[in-house]
């Protein structure tokens, strides 16, 4: 067991090391100290309880966003719409969170999460239904829906749902009621626990249920799935809805557990990062967790890194790109490490692009 896990983790781990090494070269070229930069990065991401909390908080939407992309990939769909789904989830969860008063926590919080998830699901389903009925390419539709969701939620935050209390001039909702807040236990945000549970749930659904079997069948061979009596249209539509649900939940947790409200412009890019996470995890729902943690840690520590060593936080993006490259092109890593694949090992190369055109 441990051996197989190690074997599976060898390339990703080596990729991280290589990515950091190349990043170190860039940092050195810029005349900064690599040691203090990386030291601050780690300290800022895991140095104390606060840092850990921040890392976990950052990892939470990344895990959800990664799952939203990975789940859709399993059905052969490329969901670039995580950002839009996350935004509507965040906005509507906040809407329920501040809109209802005097409701007990056991009702209010689940309801707010549910509404956020449902909003994301509906947003994702638009792309899925259009794909199933008219063949409209989900990539186009989800890209467009991202823009629409950004505008819609900005408008909600600036107009009907704007916080009118005091001197607030910001496009944001009021704080959610305490009964809709997601608790944080010391350094452990409950939202992250939900993210981990969601990852395992995704794995379970995909691997252990008939529905997951259908999703994977559609992704692996759409034609054979149809011949096997699986309704391909339904699977595409419902998979996009599930993907949207996941992203929407990620957004809802941001609103209810991190920001305490929905505010225009604060969830920038979270949904897009899901693509990176899903690819780093090679679309494996469980692997999404460490991938999210890694990126979350780097993002949580970036400010301290800049503060301590003067290295611009954008280096994080460069390192991420490099890690992704090495993960995706194991040939390079294997060559560098002189790792030899077992000759009988099946070709585990990831092929997402093959699902692009169908």
């Amino acid at each position: 067991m441990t051996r197989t896990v190690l074997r599976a983790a060898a390339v990703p781990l080596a990729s991280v090391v290589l990515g950091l090494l190349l990043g170190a070269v860039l940092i050195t070229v810029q005349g900064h100290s690599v040691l203090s930069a990386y030291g601050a990065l780690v300290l800022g991401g895991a140095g104390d309880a606060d840092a850990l909390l921040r890392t976990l908080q950052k990892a939470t939407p990344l895990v959800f966003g990664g799952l939203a992309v990975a789940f859709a990939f399993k059905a052969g769909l490329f969901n670039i719409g995580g950002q839009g789904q996350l935004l509507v989830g965040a906005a509507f969860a906040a809407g329920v969170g501040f809109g209802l008063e005097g409701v007990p926590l056991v009702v209010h919080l689940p309801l707010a999460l549910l509404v956020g998830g449902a909003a994301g699901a509906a947003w994702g389903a638009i792309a899925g239904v259009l794909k199933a009925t008219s063949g409209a390419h989900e990539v186009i539709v989800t890209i467009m829906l991202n823009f629409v969701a950004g505008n819609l939620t900005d408008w909600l935050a600036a107009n009907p749902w704007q916080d009118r209390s005091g001197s607030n001039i910001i496009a944001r909702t009021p704080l959610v009621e305490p009964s809709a807040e997601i608790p944080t236990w010391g350094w452990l945000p409950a939202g992250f626990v939900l993210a981990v549970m969601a990852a395992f749930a995704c794995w379970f659904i995909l691997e252990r249920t008939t529905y997951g079997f259908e999703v994977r069948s559609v992704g692996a061979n759409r034609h054979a799935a149809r011949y096997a009596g699986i309704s391909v249209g339904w699977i595409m539509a419902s998979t996009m809805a599930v993907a949207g649900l996941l992203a929407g939940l990620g957004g809802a947790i941001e609103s209810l557990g991190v920001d305490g409200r929905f505010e225009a412009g604060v969830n920038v890019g979270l949904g897009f990062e899901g693509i990176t996470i899903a690819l780093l995890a090679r679309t494996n729902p469980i692997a999404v967790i460490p991938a999210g943690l890694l990126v979350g840690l780097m993002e949580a520590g970036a400010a301290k890194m800049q503060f301590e060593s003067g290295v611009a936080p954008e280096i994080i993006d460069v390192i991420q790109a490099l890690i992704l490259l090495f993960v995706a092109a194991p040939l390079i890593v294997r060559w560098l490490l002189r790792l030899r694949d077992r000759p009988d090992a099946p070709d585990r190369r990831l092929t997402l692009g093959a699902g692009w055109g169908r």
Partner: protein
Amino acid sequence: MTAPGGAATRPDLALASRDAGLRGWSPQRMWSVAGAVVLVALVWGFYAWDGAQTTAVLGGTVRAATLLVLGAMCGMIGERSGIVNIGIEGQFLMSAFTAFTVASMSGSLFLGVVAGVSTGLAMGWMLAAMSVGLRTDQIIAGTVLNIAALGLTSFFYDRGRSLGQPKYQSIELGPLADLPVVGTALFNRPPLTYLALVLVVVLHVLLLRSVWGMRTTAIGEHPGAAATVGIDVIRLRYWNVTLAGGLAGLGGAYLALESVGTFTRAMSGGRGFLALAVMIFGRRTPLGAYAAALFFGFTTALQGQFQLNDTFDIPAQFVGMLPFVVTIIVVAAAGLFGRMRDPAALGQPYEVR
């Protein structure tokens, strides 16, 4: 519906297979021609009503379309060769950065363009090396380009650098520029826009009529068949994806040196992804993509115009949705008219046996 490229299911291939010439018009083509006629009539009507505004909207249309069509052409050469390129956004951004930096340092816009195109070529080559050479998944390869470009351009962004000279200025094409309606929009443009227009036509002819275009179609549809007649699939894919990158590089140079005149972080603003949408919408032909890009540019310019005129008393956020909502509707409707088939080998790594 005035679906651009809503013509025959695969207008390019239909052409390819009908060397003898036009053989009857499909209903889709009839619809799109009818739609185009209505559109032209509408534009003419508006022009008679308010020339300045119509000119402004048409100018904005062409302007927004130029970048999109360059990106779309980059994407379509790749896809026709069987390689998905979702890294156009990164190619735009990176080449805009180098174009701006080189133009600023050398004082020559032309050198800037050269640098932009070279960067695009280099990034195209990297995409090829990853997806063709290393047989990395193509979606991942594109994503790597996007993230790396965003990170590198921000990391090396030189605060306070400015172009130090005016960006590319419009050139009037003699009497053509005085034509009503289209004069300003098409014939009083800066140089890279003209270049892009020429490239659209040239590439269209090349893709559908040239030996290269035919071989490109072959390696995208059936690389095995192409290989049996001696076409070096790997080599051609390398070349195509690399050269296509040059088009995105030109797009980046256009963005930095002609459209805007400066560089700022993340200035491509998702237009690389929009270009992808435009490519698919335009059914992977340059003219189709240009029609789609114009359509998208038109809705963008129109929503700006609605705001300038206070046409509708609704929040900017809703007016701003117009291009995206309309695109979704049109893409869905076009799908109902006839689905487009993708190149059969798209997204699949090719291995030499």
